């Protein structure tokens, strides 16, 4: 029998995230571990009259190609894969983590070559999305290996994930709409604000947000979700911040990342753990030393960090800042190959001031 939580999850995806009706063609892209969510969502989308296809590729189809394939085989993008972008106007990416070390021993250069070969696909996908022809959502599905990464039992991780998705609420779609309305009130408050100041134990950071549009993330593109963000102008960050929520980067942990910004650029950086990873990433390119995003996490059902940015950046009462690329649609003009979200916990003694007025105190929004 289908887990009743999956039925609710499928309704949330089809109703709230993708607004699926009989005019749509939905492609579900999933690893094998995400099969149950793929089938549950397809059932709901079919009932709404939509066409639904599934693309389920096992992890080894990528790792074997990277390990054993020639350069030409690694860099091959099938014309059929490119064509799929034209044929579907709704996409569900099931994020069902497998072995995070599956690519161990494979050179990152090969991985990058494969990623580059996908660029025509992602460019066309972005183009159609920007033109309003295509909508997508990435949705987390709890797996045993995801639980292992979060250092929890598998059933406990399932409870955590479904709770973060607001599936324990009597009406999850209504719960996400309510969060969306809270975001609108927060954005009303933030609009017109010139400067945000983040203050905590080892943090005193000023972020210029004047005239920058704020974006609400309430389940349209990520599940779980819960944040509002903007793209600060280049040069608009000053001061020091410690990101006390650990960040997992390609299997390595970066803990207590400390950054000092001067005129928007990181001029000093250290970390209690993984400092070499931090310094290497800062040297990726020029844009890697600038902030591409500043955001406030609003999901009150996520209250502990699990080592997965998708969840951690949503923790209600945190803020995060991304080093690297920004979003041009929101006026961001920082370019970089990286976009690294780093999270600062404000739930015990932290605060955010908006032009000197308290906006968030001890993790609680004053809106």
């Amino acid at each position, binding site marked *: 029998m289908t887990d009743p939580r999956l039925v609710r999850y499928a309704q949330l995806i089809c109703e709230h995230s993708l607004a699926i009706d009989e005019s749509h063609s939905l492609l579900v892209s999933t690893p094998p571990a995400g099969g149950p969510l793929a089938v549950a969502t397809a059932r709901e989308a*079919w009932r709404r009259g939509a*066409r639904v296809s599934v693309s389920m590729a*096992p992890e080894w*189809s990528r790792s074997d190609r990277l390990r054993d394939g020639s350069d030409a085989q690694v860099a091959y993008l099938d014309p*059929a894969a490119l064509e799929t972008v034209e044929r579907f106007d709704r996409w569900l990416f099931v994020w069902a983590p497998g072995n995070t070390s599956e690519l161990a021993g494979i050179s990152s250069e090969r991985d990058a070559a494969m990623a580059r070969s996908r660029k025509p696909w992602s460019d066309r996908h972005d183009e159609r999305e920007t033109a309003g022809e295509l909508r997508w959502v990435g949705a987390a599905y709890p797996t045993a290996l995801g639980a292992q990464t979060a250092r929890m039992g598998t059933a406990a991780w399932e409870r955590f994930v479904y709770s973060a998705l607001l599936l324990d609420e009597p009406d999850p779609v209504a719960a996400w709409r309510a969060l969306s309305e809270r975001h609108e009130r927060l954005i009303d408050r933030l609009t017109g604000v010139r400067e945000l100041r983040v203050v905590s134990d080892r943090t005193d950071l000023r972020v210029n947000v004047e005239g920058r549009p704020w974006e609400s993330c309430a389940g349209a593109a990520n599940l779980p979700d819960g944040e509002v963000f903007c793209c600060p102008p280049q040069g608009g960050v000053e001061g020091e911040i410690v990101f006390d929520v650990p960040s997992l980067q390609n299997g390595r942990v970066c803990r207590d990342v400390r950054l000092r910004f001067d005129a928007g650029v990181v001029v000093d950086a250290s970390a209690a753990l993984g400092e070499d990873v931090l310094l290497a990433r800062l040297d990726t390119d020029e844009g890697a030393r600038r902030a591409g995003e500043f955001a406030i996490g609003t999901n009150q059902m996520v209250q502990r960090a699990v080592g997965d940015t998708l969840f951690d950046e949503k923790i209600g009462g945190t803020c995060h800042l991304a080093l690297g690329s920004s979003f041009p649609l929101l006026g961001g003009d920082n370019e970089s190959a990286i976009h690294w979200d780093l999270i600062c916990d404000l739930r015990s003694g932290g605060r955010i001031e908006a032009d000197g007025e308290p906006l968030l105190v001890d993790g609680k929004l004053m809106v």
Partner: protein
Amino acid sequence: MDPFDDSYARVIVEHALAVRSGQSVLIEAGQAAEPLARAVHRRVLEAGGHPAVQLLPNGWIEAKAECASDAVLGEADPLKLAWYERVDCRVTLLALENVEQLAHLPPARAAASETGRLRAVHVLVDRDARGEAVWCGAQYPTAAYAQAAGLSLDGYRDLLGRALKLDQPDPVVAWRVQGERQDRLIAQLAQVDELRIVAAGTDLRVRVGGRRWVSASGRHNLPDGEVFTGPHEDATEGVVTFAMPSAWGGQRVEGARLRFEAGRCVEAGAASGATFLQAALDTDAGARTLGEFAFGLNEAIAEPTLDTLLDEKIGGTVHMALGSSYAVTGGTNTSALHWDLVCDLRDEGEVYADGTLIQRNGRFLGDFA
């Protein structure tokens, strides 16, 4: 890697698809066949091809047949179309986890499910006929097939391994030899105008003169072993009884009996599944006409497994399909249906070619042997 999977993968990549460097290869597989899919993927990489893998999630077909609208269920899957229109090679590894997954549904829904599948497959079949693509369906041993055949999983796997010639010193060579034997039989059949099949409950005449016989020796189906043609659409006369159970679109029919006049089925009955049989015959105008007539030639398959892919290959049987013909045979029947029904001739069966006895009790005689 499991030697069964690796040996099977070699037959698929070297013999069935004959993958060449630079070709794109779509590997479709039921989730249970993931180990074989990986073995095929590796062999395609070794051959210099570009493999892509798409697994079929457990429960997908059933969910679609239950939930999709009639229109969506009966049309081709848009993702499959995008691939089938472009790939050089495509193999589907059949690995059902439940062969009765559609048995609880109204027959029309099960039939629509199969119609939708075939609409996509026809794109490949047509491209194959034009020499633009190669397709293959290959059976993988699952508990579901074993249970349907009344065998243990190991027993079924052994049977399948023999039927695939994986027990031969070099399976790829063994399939080539099978192909040569079939070519010799075709040389004889090509001179025949009318075939008459006589067995218990059966006396049927089909006209095949001028039509092309095709050898199926492991290119499109694995296991394989048959020669087939498309009989004249207006000439089939008489009665045929299919003692072997047959399934189409997940619905099973046992003891089907069909009477033909001037090529069309004018009367049909069955010991069980008669309702579905009628629904199938009413699919469209072409569903009452034979699109295929064939001899099964795989001597390693002796017992029916209730799986058409295997049963139609049993040495000593003939089978005929209601519905669409393959253009390559010269057959002209079109239909969304292509339903193979198997008639066992190993017990008191006879085949006459233009009046001459050429097969008795399932064994070919004289120049046909």
